[in-house]
């Protein structure tokens, strides 16, 4: 009769059937030990922790590289815009005689909004009906 939970647990675990080792158990082990062990499994076992560490390090490195590197297809509009913005005051200053201006005037000039260069005119579609009479054009329209 078991009095405590621990005793009952021990008895319960002991009641679970377990296999008997059986005949030839030792002989199979001795036979396996007598065979020459091939080289690479033993070496693989000894270097397994290092291989695991190397694989983990490689995976982390690849993830970090993928995360930090910019995508090759994405444009860099920020840098181009910044370069254009910086070039505009310089262009405006080139057209002014700076020898007659004070430093405050130059600063004000640099801050003055510069008109953007006019956009290039869109190429017009060629008029395929230029040699038709006005009546014919109206009829086609």
């Amino acid at each position, binding site marked *: 009769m078991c009095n405590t*939970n*621990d005793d*009952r*647990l*021990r*008895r*319960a*675990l*002991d*009641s*679970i*059937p*377990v*296999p*008997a*080792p*059986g005949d030839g*158990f*030792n002989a*199979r*082990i*001795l036979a*396996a*030990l*007598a065979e020459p*062990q091939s080289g690479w499994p*033993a070496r693989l076992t000894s270097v397994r922790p290092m291989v695991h560490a190397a694989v983990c390090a490689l995976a982390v490195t690849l993830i970090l590289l993928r995360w930090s590197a910019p995508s090759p297809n994405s444009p860099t509009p920020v840098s181009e815009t910044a370069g254009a913005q910086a070039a505009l005051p310089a262009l405006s200053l080139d057209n002014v005689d700076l020898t007659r201006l004070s430093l405050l005037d130059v600063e004000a000039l640099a801050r003055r909004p510069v008109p953007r260069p006019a956009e290039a005119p869109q190429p017009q579609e060629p008029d395929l009906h230029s040699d038709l009479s006005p009546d014919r054009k109206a009829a086609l329209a």
Partner: protein
Amino acid sequence: MVSEFAGKIAAAESKEATVDRREMEQIERACAGDAGAVDWLVSRYRVRVVRLAAHVLGDAEEAKDAAQDAFIHAFRSLGGYRNEGRFYTWLYSIVVRVCLDRRRLAWWRRERPLETPDDGFAASGGEIADVELLIVAKSLMAQLSPPMRAMLVLRELEGLEYEEIAQVLRIPVGRVRWRLHAARAQFQELWQRAVEETESV
């Protein structure tokens, strides 16, 4: 009375020391390649190793294979055993590792179910097992993870200390205590439920 008890303890300690000395001699001889010493060590530990493997794996045939694998691993790497602990602690750590590797492989291959029929098992101890206890024990083991099963068997059946179990499983002692406490509470709950069910019937 007291002196008689002290005498018995001293005799038991002396016997244990003799066995340990003999075991150390056999380990040294096995390390040198003596097949007789290997046979002696296998015979000494095979029942316990197969029992541990059977509880961790829950499969009779696989338990025997795993036990043999563990012995082969152990004797091939016997040079790595440097008397840092008891030989059985070192051997059990190999058994648990081999069993967990097999369980992982089985999970990857999805070959075997965790619980299998009792074919190939023989009742331990030679006593008629209490059916209720057996059912509750099986139910408990089915609910626990393989490392938890190993922990429970090492503590309750092999009688290892918490520190030794921590050494075998390579986990902190605190975790061993906490998990064993949780397993015992789980068993208590299952037992109470079984008793209530029996009474209600």
